[in-house]
């Protein structure tokens, strides 16, 4: 099915933009709605879901190496229930790719290219991602490596240039209303952290499998630190108004005015977002195409890449009449759906697999 090999460092480099890209843009304001000025604590709590997901995915991978979740779920819970679960995974990854694509299109169309039809923005992104997914996992890994500096550099520059506008008093009172608000706010980034389950589609193609767990954990930590720093920056600049902004990092970047030369840095945010969304959509698209091919027992996933592209574009509009509906979906459905499909069901699979392995061991003795 897939003959390419990637290194575990490449896997980490693919996952980092995949999680961070959308999480730094929209998540701070949604988190702030619940956690108020404790929004920087929420990613730390949410990262626990990320660590658990990586651990579960790696343990499942150790029990069934060379297989993805679509294949080993058939072995764990039987053929028919496994197929049903595989279908549920398909109907998680294809619509979620569409929803990410819609989020990308809405952001570009609302903030920068006001007169461009959204379908043009989205279709050009899908064509680009389809080409890279069709190229295979090695191409995807190398593209992520190539774009990582373009992704990280603007964030660092933005943080340095903003240092004059920071108001550190905004952080107080810490835990003014107890632990509940940051805990509730952690549900939203928790959905993002559960996306680390994507490593289950990448682990079988690692050249150095033993390091998979280590690099997965390092990535979770890097994502957590990035989110904490971004949330703190947003909080220090915007204070209590954070929750009323749709894209707080955009608003923050407009504050930058350094030596009357560095201004209008929102284009830097756009660069981060376009590069990050490209890697993110590609990784999800790859997972969707690979799981479709494995679910149908095809010999190769490449023939289904383009047809799935059409489905992704259609899912990005399906039941989403406006961008308001998309962001509402992000709050009321995605975190729970994501955690259920990517953390809780894999945990159940792992428990069943362990019990079955142990029973087999006692029977043969």
């Amino acid at each position, binding site marked *: 099915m897939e003959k390419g090999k990637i290194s575990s460092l490449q896997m980490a480099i693919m996952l980092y933009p995949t999680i961070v890209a959308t999480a730094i843009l929209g998540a701070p304001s949604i988190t702030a709605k619940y956690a108020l000025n404790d929004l920087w604590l929420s990613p730390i709590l949410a990262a626990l879901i990320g660590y658990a997901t990586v651990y579960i995915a790696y343990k499942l991978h150790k029990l069934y190496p060379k297989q993805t979740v679509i294949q080993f779920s058939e072995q764990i819970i039987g053929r028919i229930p496994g197929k049903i679960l595989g279908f549920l995974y398909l109907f998680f990854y294809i619509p979620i790719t569409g929803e990410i694509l819609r989020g990308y299109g809405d952001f570009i169309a609302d903030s920068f290219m006001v007169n461009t039809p959204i379908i043009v923005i989205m279709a050009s992104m899908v064509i680009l991602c389809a080409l890279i997914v069709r190229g295979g996992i090695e191409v995807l890994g190398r593209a992520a490596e190539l774009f990582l500096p373009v992704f990280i550099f603007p964030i660092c520059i933005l943080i340095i240039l903003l240092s004059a506008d920071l108001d550190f008093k905004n952080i107080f009172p810490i835990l003014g209303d107890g632990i509940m608000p940051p805990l509730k706010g952690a*549900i939203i980034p928790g959905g993002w952290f559960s996306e680390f389950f994507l490593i289950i589609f990448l682990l079988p193609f690692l050249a150095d499998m033993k390091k998979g767990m280590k690099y997965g954990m390092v990535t979770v930590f890097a994502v957590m630190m990035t989110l904490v720093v971004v949330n703190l920056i947003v909080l220090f600049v915007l204070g209590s108004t954070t929750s009323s902004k749709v894209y707080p990092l955009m608003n923050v970047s407009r504050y930058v005015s350094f030596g009357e030369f560095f201004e209008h840095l929102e284009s830097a945010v756009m660069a981060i977002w376009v590069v990050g969304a490209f890697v993110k959509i590609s990784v999800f698209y790859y997972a969707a195409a690979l799981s479709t091919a494995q679910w149908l027992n095809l010999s190769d996933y490449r*023939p289904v890449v383009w047809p799935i592209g*059409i489905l992704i574009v259609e899912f990005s509009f399906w039941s989403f009449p406006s961008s308001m509906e998309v962001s509402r979906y992000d709050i009321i459905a995605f975190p729970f759906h994501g955690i259920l499909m990517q953390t809780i069901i894999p945990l159940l699979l792992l428990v069943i697999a362990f019990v079955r392995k142990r029973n087999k061991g006692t029977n043969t003795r």
Partner: protein
Amino acid sequence: MRWGTFLGTTVIVALIILYEWPKMKQNPKKDKMAFFSLLLMGLVLSMFNIQQMSGPTAWIVTFFKPFGEFMEK
């Protein structure tokens, strides 16, 4: 039904078939079946006004309604 979207999708589907067919000629029959049925699904979906239609995402919102109400409080 919106003819513009449908015609646009038809053109794209035709282009995909033209691009992909020479490469997958020796693939097993199952691959070809999957390829064409997925394209057909895309084509059928493009006939509807999907933005207003209730679909999988709307069902998921309904499914997670108790949690959603907890978040909207």
